[in-house]
């Protein structure tokens, strides 16, 4: 008599369902637009400043400043800018949104303040006044 061969069937449909769910999750949470923050900036630590919950307002100008071999590198919305270009950008922002447009400075923690002051001077020349310094939130003691 022929023995009935038992075949093992792996339930693939459930596996595919879960895999598609995971893909949809990662697609939805992936950010497709250009990030305005430069993740290579080594921000200073803060322990007592309340962390942002909603992020900066959409019209905020985020200026990332990194120190590379003693030289300052300014990055805005993923592109490298010179000081003169930052000045023009700030003036354009003021003309478009008024002088209350927020400026967020994300500077390396080791950057000498005299370099930050150069950007402050540009902000002042453009007539803007809402300036914030960004730090990494390390929670409270």
């Amino acid at each position, binding site marked *: 008599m022929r023995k009935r061969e038992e075949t093992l069937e792996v339930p693939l449909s459930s596996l595919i369902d879960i895999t598609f769910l995971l893909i949809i999750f990662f697609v939805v949470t992936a950010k497709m637009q250009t990030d305005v923050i430069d993740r290579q900036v080594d921000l200073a630590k803060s322990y007592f400043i309340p962390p*942002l919950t909603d992020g900066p307002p959409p019209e905020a100008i985020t200026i990332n400043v990194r120190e590379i071999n003693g030289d300052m590198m300014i990055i805005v919305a993923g592109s490298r800018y010179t000081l003169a270009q930052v000045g023009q950008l700030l003036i354009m922002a003021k003309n478009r949104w008024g002088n209350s447009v927020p400026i967020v400075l994300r500077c390396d923690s080791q950057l000498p*303040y005299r370099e930050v002051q150069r950007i402050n001077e540009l902000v002042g020349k453009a007539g803007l006044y809402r300036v914030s310094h960004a*730090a990494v939130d390390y929670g409270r003691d």
Partner: protein
Amino acid sequence: MAHKKSIDKIETPLSALIDVVFLLLMYFISSQQPEIPEAHVAINLPSPSAISNPQQAPPQLLEIHVLPNFQYSIQNTPMSLDAVGTYLQRVGALNSKDTTVIIKVAPDATEGNLVSVLDRCNKANLSQLNVMMMQ
């Protein structure tokens, strides 16, 4: 004799589909970046044309100097960062709304030194923060 008609089964090539699906999954997992919890502290910069209201009472001023190598001083008294924090908390407990903090930063002091002081000011509920560079 009845011949059993062989029913042609259409088989979808699932293995290739699963391969592509897993490749997509691995791509999205590897391209995920962790969120950086950020905190922003608002400051006031020196205004080129400050208009003062003579009828307003002069604010209580507290001057903090931020020097290089993690050195700080309040009203020209050298202090450590922890001592600065303690002093600011005492000031903040007495009168946080009317106290204006002027933070003068040495050109060679770092952004991290400044943020440490801004952090302590925030802990003491001092929100009127003015930052300028020492000449």
